């Protein structure tokens, strides 16, 4: 067996900003190390590849104890938008791009980007709703076939 990871499949299942970025950063980072990558977007994670939504993801300020603000305050209008703005600003300093640019970058590294068919059907989405950087809409079975021989990471 090789002493190095050669292939990863990363599943992005959440649609909040903090739910999407870790998977994208790990995918991009893996490609930078020469690791083969497939990204699989499922449930609300699909928002990160839907054209109209990908650049409007928000940080969850309610039900997120790590935000260190009281839940009631987090629920005030504009709190999520404010937290999102602040986080995006900090990420920009580290050269972490907005979602649409990041998705394009990751696609350009040669990674495969796929949407979960069950979710696409459930939300009544069409192919034209997605970014042109999406490589396809696939079933869970196809995902497992594709992931053969690599590690699977669920986020």
């Amino acid at each position: 067996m090789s002493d190095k990871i050669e292939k990863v499949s990363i599943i992005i299942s959440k649609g909040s900003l903090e739910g999407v970025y870790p998977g994208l950063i790990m995918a991009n980072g893996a490609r930078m190390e020469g690791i083969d990558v497939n990204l699989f977007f499922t449930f609300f994670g699909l928002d990160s590849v839907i054209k109209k939504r990908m650049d409007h993801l928000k940080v969850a300020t309610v039900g997120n104890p790590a935000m260190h603000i009281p839940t009631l305050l987090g629920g005030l209008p504009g709190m999520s938008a404010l937290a999102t703005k602040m986080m995006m600003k900090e990420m920009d300093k580290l050269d972490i791009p907005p979602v649409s640019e990041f998705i394009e970058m990751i696609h350009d590294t040669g990674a495969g980007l796929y949407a979960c068919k069950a979710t696409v059907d459930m939300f009544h989405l069409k192919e034209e709703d997605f970014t042109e950087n999406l490589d396809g809409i696939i079933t869970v079975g196809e995902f497992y076939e594709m992931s053969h021989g690599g590690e699977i990471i669920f986020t």
Partner: protein
Amino acid sequence: MATATLAGITVERDDEGYLKNPNDWTEEMAPELAKEMGIDTLTDEHWKVIRFMRQDFQEKGQVPTIRRMKVAGGIPVKDLYNLFPKGPAKKAAYIAGLGKPHGCI
């Protein structure tokens, strides 16, 4: 850490082979460093990347990220991966005589 002779000049290198001091680097060393990374010939496109990295490092004091090479250097991500397969940021920094990149992007 070890010393090595590259293009007739003695330089210090770290455990992974990166030049310890970017100022030791000369353009003549690049082809030798590239061979160590499995790149036999440095084309004009490779040089565009190397020169941008050197210049940006001089100005900013850190090895540019892939995103910076794309946005500020105008070098498409696809090209970077074609020119420096399996690890463009690290390989290009290695050949350009810069330290190992520390960013995650």
